[in-house]
């Protein structure tokens, strides 16, 4: 062993404690320069069990004068440099959930589920967390109830007390009345199909009448003049408005 060691590192190297040289990085000083004939062939030494010195020293010797130089990371490694949502084909999910507003309540996600499901589960002990923390004590299988067991489910006649009727209470659903009103004027159908029974149509016809318009205007004028005399605090504004129109 010492013979092989000396052939590799020379006689002077044997004095160096093996532990410090085998690590490949010391207290900050670069390793002592190796003999010229040894630098070119460090790989010739057969690997020895328990002696990792040459294997670790190898890059240091090759990368002179950079004794702490390490291999750079491989370029094709998946990092945060790439858009990971695109990489994992999650654009559809991203657009679905982040593109539009997701409704806050659980009843919006499960609209068909009966009962008040928007209340916190901790209130009535129906939380899923409690199911995990304290799993119910029961057998492994479900067996149907026989005649004798069903006798335990004979109920009293009559309605349930108020506090147990939660099953029928549904969360209030928002009505979209305003939306309907908004869409009406855009709808071309009512204009194309005239009908005498439609009260809105009648109103429109009245508005179109020029005599009625004139009368209306006159009425308005009178009203404005009245307001000038009746309400002195607003007179200036009213006069301005009147003059402007």
């Amino acid at each position: 062993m010492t013979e092989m060691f000396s052939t590799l590192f020379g006689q002077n190297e044997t004095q160096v404690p093996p532990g410090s040289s085998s690590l490949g990085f010391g207290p900050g000083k670069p390793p002592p320069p190796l003999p010229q004939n040894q630098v070119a062939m460090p790989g010739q030494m057969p690997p020895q069990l328990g002696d990792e010195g040459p294997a670790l020293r190898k890059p240091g010797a090759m990368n002179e004068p950079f004794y702490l130089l390490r291999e750079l990371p491989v370029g094709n490694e998946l990092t945060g440099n790439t858009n990971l949502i695109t990489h994992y084909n999650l654009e559809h999910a991203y657009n679905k959930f982040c593109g539009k507003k997701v409704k806050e309540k659980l009843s919006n996600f499960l609209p068909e589920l009966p009962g008040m499901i928007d209340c916190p589960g901790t209130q009535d002990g129906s939380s899923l967390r409690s199911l995990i923390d304290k799993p119910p004590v029961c057998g492994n299988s479900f067996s149907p109830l026989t005649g004798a067991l069903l006798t335990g489910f004979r109920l009293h006649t009559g309605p349930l007390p108020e506090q147990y009727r939660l099953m029928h209470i549904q969360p209030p659903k928002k009505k979209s009345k305003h939306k309907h009103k908004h869409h009406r004027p855009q709808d071309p159908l009512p204009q194309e199909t005239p009908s005498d029974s439609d009260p809105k149509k009648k109103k429109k016809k009245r508005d179109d009448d020029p005599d009625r318009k004139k009368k209306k205007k006159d009425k308005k004028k009178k009203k404005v003049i009245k307001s000038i005399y009746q309400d002195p605090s607003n007179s200036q504004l009213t006069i301005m408005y009147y003059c402007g129109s």
Partner: protein
Amino acid sequence: MAEKFDNLEEHLEKFIENIRQLGIIVSDFQPSSQAGLNQKLNFMISGLQDIEKCRQQLHEINVPLEVFEYIDQGRNPQLYTKECLERALARNEQVKGKIDTMTKFKSLLISELSKVFPEEMAKYKAIHGEDAPS
């Protein structure tokens, strides 16, 4: 994969509907309803058996515990997915920013070091190449 979920969903819907009907029977119980109640109770048990059978098909499905917290609070669990995606994208952008900054820093450092230590940097470039991967 979707078939498994459809199967479970179908059984769950049937189970919930049965429970709803059971609730209606119980809410105003009449003596004549006893036979119907017994039938519904056994339907409930068979429903639980069906759901139990679905469990075997869904062994590899992992559900994050945070989703349960959302459900327990009466919140839409899709909000969890939304927040996860938003957080992932934000972190992705942060990391990309860091990588870009470090890349710029590296090229700047190499150019500055090349001015001060031209020989050493020439050796460095000989080892790692001119445009080493960052």
